[in-house]
């Protein structure tokens, strides 16, 4: 059925408007901060950049998982799913430690508009990554029970569309928050 993929396609389109608004809020306040923490003086683009690479790589691995399923290679499907989950989890670990570091410096959501917009934007993105991880884990579980015979499965394809989307959003978020600050 093409229905499921169409649903996830429009869902992702709808979600992208949601993120767009959060990004617009960030951009709107970018130039207005007069004192307190800003992206330029409190973030480490290199460290986050490295963790971002994990997320980018996970997009690749989930694509490979789809390919394995298409060629009915169930073993590799499971392997690539595990790899994807691990890479996503690493990214979340990176983000969590970044948040903790900032909170240690008393940079919180209520500190100023940078804190507000930064934590909201990255927080909602992180939440989406976590949801994606949950779905990938379910897929892995189903794969363990041999639910995906291949060569096609809406489940795997839909989750990977979602995962690519989450990844794409991060590219924009990273560019807007980290790269823009250091241009």
């Amino acid at each position, binding site marked *: 059925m093409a229905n499921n993929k169409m649903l996830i396609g429009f869902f992702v*389109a709808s979600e992208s408007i949601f993120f*767009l608004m959060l990004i*617009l809020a960030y*951009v*709107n306040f970018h*130039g207005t901060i007069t004192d307190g923490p800003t992206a330029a003086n409190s973030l480490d683009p290199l460290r986050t950049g490295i963790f971002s690479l994990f997320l980018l790589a996970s997009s690749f691995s989930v694509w490979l998982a789809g390919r394995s399923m298409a060629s009915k290679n169930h073993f590799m499907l499971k392997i690539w799913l595990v790899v994807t989950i691990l890479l996503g989890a690493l990214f979340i670990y990176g983000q969590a430690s970044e948040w903790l570091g900032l909170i240690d410096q008393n940079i919180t959501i209520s500190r100023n508009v940078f804190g507000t917009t930064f934590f909201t934007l990255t927080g909602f993105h992180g939440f989406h990554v976590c949801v994606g991880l949950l779905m990938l884990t379910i897929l892995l579980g189903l794969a363990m029970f041999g639910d995906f015979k291949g060569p096609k499965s809406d489940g795997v394809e839909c989750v990977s569309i979602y995962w690519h989307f989450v990844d794409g959003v991060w590219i924009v978020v990273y560019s807007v928050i980290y790269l823009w600050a250091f*241009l």
Partner: protein
Amino acid sequence: MNIWQVLSSTWNMEPWVLISALFLLIGYGIATGFKFTKLSALFVSGIALYVFALVSPLDYLGRTYLFSAHMIQHILLLLIVPLLLLLAIPEKLAKKALSVEPFGSIMKVLGHPLIAWFLGVGAMWVWHLPSLHDMVLANDNLYIAQQISFVLIGMIFWWPVFAPVESRRLSPLTSTLYLSSACLGCTILGMLITFAGAGLYAAYMTPVDTMGILPLLRGELCLTPGVDQQIGGLTMWVPGCLIYLTASMVTLARWYSTEENYEISTTHYKEIKNFE
């Protein structure tokens, strides 16, 4: 000086514009055998707009005084001129050209919707980064590069939707998505420029008033930097967006007209009637 004097004295016959236009016209003529058709009319009007955008007061004012003039020029060069030029390419010619390597594979890469989209929307965003824009205004060579890049990138952007060869086009529904998301990209930039405080682009705040027309612009025409920037932002936002939307109406109409037609034969029809 009044407004008419300003408009008549700021034409700026830059040789590179005229030479490139002539070159393109002759090239097109040779390729199509100098026959006057609907397509060649499109091409000539495209070139005419190209020349107009670059030699008319739009160019002069946009480079020195008015962000809004720059934006009109920008929309012409990025969205309208390339579309006209692209539509003017005959299908046969395009097929022939695409079979020539490496041109064919280059277009395959550049014409990939993702790449074309990012180039098209990226050109709009990147060239309007305040620091870059101010730099362009100060440097003539960079300025020429910018204008040429607009036209080229514009053609690449329109390629997936209006490529002369149908097999290179996206399906109608995907093109609609392609165009409306690009529209969104341009809308957001327009919105940001419109609602940002005046003085986003420092060069237009205090232009070097060589012509002595600043009092006219600021006073009589009320084009203060804030208003000027708002008009510029709205130009990108509204007419810019309308171009994308009109194009996506075209793609929607394509979809609507190619839609599958299930019909039921008249004989069956009577059968059912009897059954009822």
